């Protein structure tokens, strides 16, 4: 009651409370901002590293190639023996050119046949490039057999 009656005594107390309040509000705001920024940076960094981990975990081979004379289609069997699912495009260059760039999905541990429409002659030499959407590349060659 004595304090409330004395304005000179009350002012420093109020000023201290106001100053501390301001410091707390500003401090909590800074903490909140920093917290959300670091969380966001963490997520971004993790996503970036995860992309790299997936890229280095990719393993696939061209397991088999055959040409179907009746349908005029080059069949390329791609085996995903890595740890992650992949999407691949197949490009054929050499004596004949063609491609299948439909991002064929291949689950890990699976083999998938990818067809490339192609007009070729017996003895044509083909270079087959299989490119994953994570930019890993596998090459194979094939010579069109006589029958």
């Amino acid at each position, binding site marked *: 009651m004595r304090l409330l009656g004395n304005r000179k005594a009350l002012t*420093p107390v109020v*000023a*201290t409370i106001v*100053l*501390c309040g*301001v*410091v*707390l509000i500003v*401090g*909590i705001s*800074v*903490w909140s901002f*920093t*917290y959300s920024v*670091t969380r966001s*940076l*963490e997520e971004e*960094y*993790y996503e970036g*590293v995860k992309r*790299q*981990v997936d890229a*280095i*975990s990719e*393993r*696939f*081979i061209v*397991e*088999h190639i*055959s040409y179907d004379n009746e349908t005029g289609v080059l*069949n390329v*069997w791609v*085996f995903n*023996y890595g740890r992650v699912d992949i999407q691949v495009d197949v490009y054929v260059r050499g004596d004949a050119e063609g491609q299948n760039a439909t991002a064929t999905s291949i689950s890990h*541990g699976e*083999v998938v046949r990818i067809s490339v429409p192609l007009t070729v002659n017996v003895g044509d030499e083909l270079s087959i490039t299989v490119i994953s959407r994570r930019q890993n590349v596998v090459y194979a060659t094939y010579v069109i057999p006589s029958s």
Partner: protein
Amino acid sequence: MLFMQLMLSRLLKSRSAMSTVLGMLIFIGILFTCVMPFFLYLNEVNSLYDQTVVEMKQFDQDRALENIEVYAYPLNQSSSQIRLYIKNQCPLTVRIERIWINDQYFPCDLQISGMGENTTDSVDIQDMLSQVEGVGSFQAKVTTARGNTFSSLTNPLQYSNDSGWSGGPSFAINIVIELYSGVYYFIINVDNSEGTTIYNEEIWVVLESSIMRNVDVSGPDTYHVEITQTQGPDKTWSTDVEITLEEPTKWVYPPKDYW
């Protein structure tokens, strides 16, 4: 205690000192709840990356070490069934995922322990044989779970409707013994024309329906193949095999009922 009281009374007298302390506490709070966990998290994610790199290097190394010998063989002279005898030449366990016969594949799940051997189940290629006109050529290979493919050392197998199976690229005698399920003990002996033993092996066969052995020979000659079964009453089957330049590989099929 007196010191603490003195400090507290001094602090309460100075408004800016109070705010400084609060500000400092908040700063330390930010340091411990945001910045330090952030760097610890980055470190953990980097460790995950490093671990994956090491694991994939190991994976590639294992893949490079994989080494198997594959021998595809028809069960008998006119059979539509093909089996693959596989010898693992590396210390790692190898899992066979698929068997390829020409452009057709057959799923397979066969494990072969390090330096061991095993035979796949029969693969029926009647559909392919029915399309053969004259002589048909068959290429067999297997794919492993580590992404390697190994071609059969007996490629190309040749089939004709008249004489059945033949073929093979090297000077060799391929001995195929088809069996009824049971326990057998075989002694396989191959001598050349001079009487020198070029191959001798003793084999226990337990609950297998066939076995195959590839005997590499030095060149054209007449070889004497003798197969003795000693489990139960002794039985010996023998034949002479002529290897020529025209037909460097010969297939030997003792009759299934003989044993």
